[in-house]
């Protein structure tokens, strides 16, 4: 049980990272080599849902495990746990954020693009929290392979985030940049 919870946690971390990377790629409007844009979007969605499945597999066993001493309240409310409350609390916050992002994603057609986008931005807060939780909370978080993996994930996401903020991020950026300047002052502020 304890071991299973650890492994599924690490797998969700990898999947969440993949989801963040694919999300950024989808936002750029570019296809992935031969994979068309709509498949990138579908991949982003499906990998996220898979990450959720592994998160359930990660959290549920800990509830059942007497050694881990995690109860239902700890799963939702952060920083109450008895074992490393701070690091576990980070995981709880990340889990809550994942729940918000996934639910608004599923119901985005009903919520409208504004709510969806605002909540979806929380993914960028969720990811570092989840990573910190993986390293700080895990019993083998400081072991060499886990640290090495964490560094790789970190570099990948930081690179993607840097690309996201660069001027040439959008596929159509170059041709659009020639457009005029934004007009300011529409109606009441």
């Amino acid at each position: 049980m304890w071991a299973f919870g650890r492994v599924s946690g690490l797998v969700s971390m990898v999947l969440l990272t993949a989801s963040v990377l694919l999300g950024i790629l989808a936002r750029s409007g570019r296809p992935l080599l031969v994979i068309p844009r709509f498949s990138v979007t579908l991949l982003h969605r499906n990998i996220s849902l898979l990450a959720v499945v592994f998160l359930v597999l990660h959290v549920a066993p800990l509830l059942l495990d007497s050694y881990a001493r995690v109860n239902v309240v700890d799963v939702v409310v952060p920083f109450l746990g008895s074992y490393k409350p701070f690091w576990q609390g980070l995981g709880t916050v990340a889990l809550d954020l994942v729940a918000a992002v996934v639910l608004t994603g599923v119901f985005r057609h009903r919520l409208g693009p504004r709510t969806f986008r605002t909540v979806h931005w929380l993914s960028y807060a969720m990811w570092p929290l989840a990573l910190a939780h993986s390293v700080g909370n895990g019993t083998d978080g400081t072991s060499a392979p886990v640290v090495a993996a964490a560094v790789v994930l970190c570099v990948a996401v930081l690179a993607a985030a840097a690309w996201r903020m660069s001027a040439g991020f959008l596929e159509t950026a170059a041709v659009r940049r020639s457009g005029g300047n934004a007009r300011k002052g529409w109606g009441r502020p």
Partner: protein
Amino acid sequence: MSADTAVAVGSGGNARTAASRLFAAGANAGHAAHLAAYGAMPHRGRGWSLVQELEASGLTGRGGAGFPAWRKFAAADLARRPNRYARRSGGPVLIANGAEGEPLSFKDATLLRNAPHLVIDGLLAAAQALGAGSLFIYAGADEQAAVGAALAERGDAGHIALVEAPDAFVAGQASAVVNFLETGRALPRDLAGRLAESGLKGRPTLIHNVETWAHIALVACYGAGWYRSAGTAEDPGTRLVSVTGDVPSELVLEVPGGSVLEDVLSSAGVRVGGVGSDAVSAVLVGGYHGRWVRPAGMVLSAGVGAVGSVRSGVIVRPGAGVLHVLGAGRCGLAATAGMVQYLAGESARQCGPCMFGLPALADVMTRLAAGTGGTGLVREVERLAALVSGRGACHHPDGTVQLIHSALETFADDVRWHLAGQCNADQDPAVQGVSGQGPADPAGQGVAGQYPAGVAQ
């Protein structure tokens, strides 16, 4: 334009017979003067229907599109019945749209300042006919005082809300007005259906230009038969036009429907048919979203009717009622390029093809006007025009394309010169612009049959 306008004719007459229908109560008319000229709104019996009367009158919208006014009316009338909002929140919404984003137009401002009570009468008559509860007048900053005073001065208009429109070209688009009233942002919206069916907060919403409301008041007051006693069968009644550009003075005229363009120009003091530097080269009819024409033989009419049934001449739709005169010696392409630049800057930048396409069009038009650039420019203009037209939430791209197409057509000779690297206008294109100097307009100069509600600048 704007500043202190004063109506020069028609003071204190009886509106039924006065030369000017809309300004019959004189300049800056208060409620007393208004009542003296127009009388009180008559009480109508059961069989009388404003919608039917409007249909019979043939009144068209004066905001630009020129659709028959009764259609929106009938749609709002239909929509209010099964609509669940109707009972809950007081029926349809009526909006008088006085936002003249169009920089060449000032007839709505002139109307609101001089005859606000006519607009109010139109709203009240429609509110009675439709059982409407929410009434708005949406007007620019400079008209707030006049309209506010008019609303305060009468006892029956307390429920009309006066809203200040932001000064932006697309702020007067119908969906932008509704959006502004709902959210405070005057940006056009993607429309699923018609505003008359589902507009402000889902309620049936009837939005007309302020001049249209004034005409509605006249129809409600005197009936369709009287209304048709001016104008032609295809374009009944009168309309306001703003005359600007190379004219002795910029002014607003009230002209009957189906007027000959050259007659209107000459009643504005423009020498038509002349030669030399003060001759008229072309006229932009309808404003920045309108079209360029050579004035000879043109007839201003909103309705086309059967071919030949209108006086001999080519019909040009008056759109928002702007007549912008381009004197000989001015380059029409340079003037158009400047307008397209302006229009590109006024894109609300919500819709991609408009946001990127209009600056691209402005760029190509500027190169064409400057006489730099190869022979492929015209084809590039056509290609870009096809890319932007019909691909926006509002008509801004379409209006811009209409302006450009008419320029390429009307100034076809100039296009050839420019492609060869020359401009045959004898003036530096850099000094294009509105010139409105000259003696104040002697308002009585109008030709017979015109009603110069001449408004000096």
